[in-house]
């Protein structure tokens, strides 16, 4: 018997995921000049959609928060928790 047919199992397939980004009515915008790449937003983002990317500019900080808008629901937790007020919620 095909192993996958035992019981009613569903395999994870991200392409079938609802794109929860369309829930947003406000979007987080990261201010490149203020973001220090500390990672506080990464830690508290309930959707885990924030990455720290290497910076390519001449800032003294090495990393910058980058938010995946496909799944960000626009809750605003990152903006509230950012210790440097580097994230602002803007209207969509």
């Amino acid at each position, binding site marked *: 018997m095909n192993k996958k047919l035992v019981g009613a199992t569903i*395999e994870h397939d*991200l392409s079938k995921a*609802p*794109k929860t980004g369309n829930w947003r009515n406000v979007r987080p915008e990261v201010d490149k000049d203020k973001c220090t790449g500390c990672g506080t937003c*990464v830690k508290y983002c*309930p*959707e*885990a959609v924030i990455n720290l990317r290497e910076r390519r500019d001449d800032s003294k900080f090495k990393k910058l928060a980058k938010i995946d808008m496909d799944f960000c629901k626009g809750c*605003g937790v990152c903006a509230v928790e950012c210790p440097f007020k580097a994230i602002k919620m803007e209207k969509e």
Partner: protein
Amino acid sequence: MNKKLTEKLAPGHSTCAGCGIPSIVRTVLGATEDPVVVINATGCLEVTTTLHPYSAWKVPYIHNAFENAGATASGVEAAYKVLKRKGLIKKNVKFVAFGGDGGTYDIGLQALSGMLERGHQVLYVAYDNQGYMNTGGQRSGATPMGANMETTPSGKESFGNQTDRKDIMQIVAAHHVKYLAQSNVAYIEDLAKKAKKAFETEGPSFLLVLQPCTNVWKYPTSQYVRIGKLATETNFWPLFEIENGKYVLNLDIKKPKPIEDFLQTQKRFKHLFAPENVEVIKTIQKNIDRKWKELLKKTSNK
């Protein structure tokens, strides 16, 4: 999305914007390197992560019913033990059961008790949002005094939920579990540390994690960390653990804030600030002070 954080639970689930449940799941599952099997009671986590035809779970996951996460976990773990003894499974596998407060304090209590008493190697994590939030906010055994819930509405005749929370930590501790702890989603490092300890425990372990609910506690979606922190800073939700029967306080709040600071952030307590309910807030504060004193007595700090 963040690759490392989404190794076991992907986005695309439908928890409310600003809900901390996925943070709890990721932090707990991230505390072990071993493969994990997740068992889930009915509740917010279950209905939001398993929207047909999508599953947000990247690890083996089983949901059975509301009342039997403990029993299902017991069965899965027992089957694993047999297969391991026969040499059919070589890996060390960890078992984690997630339940809300409804599936833990109330409906699933009997199955949980059986699992604890039989000594299955399972970590049971209760995310406590203090009510049946998935079905519109009915009260549960975890609902605090004074909360305006669907089944305990406030009005002329009532100040909302009449009774105080059930002390589930004492109930679990009475099973002589080797490790159990009370944590809070707003203190993610504390939760990670406790999850790691729980995974290393021999036999069953239990984590009770406060999970502010934006929808029924009624506060803006951006506030779960702030409100979670206030719950601990007012001693409404102290952080402690019980290791081999010994109580340890993880965060000693030297100058606790008045409970009003926590209550006024949420509309479920709005009516308590009316003149006729002054006494209710006083009673809530008294209960918190009493429980805090009891906890201090149990921990070695005093």
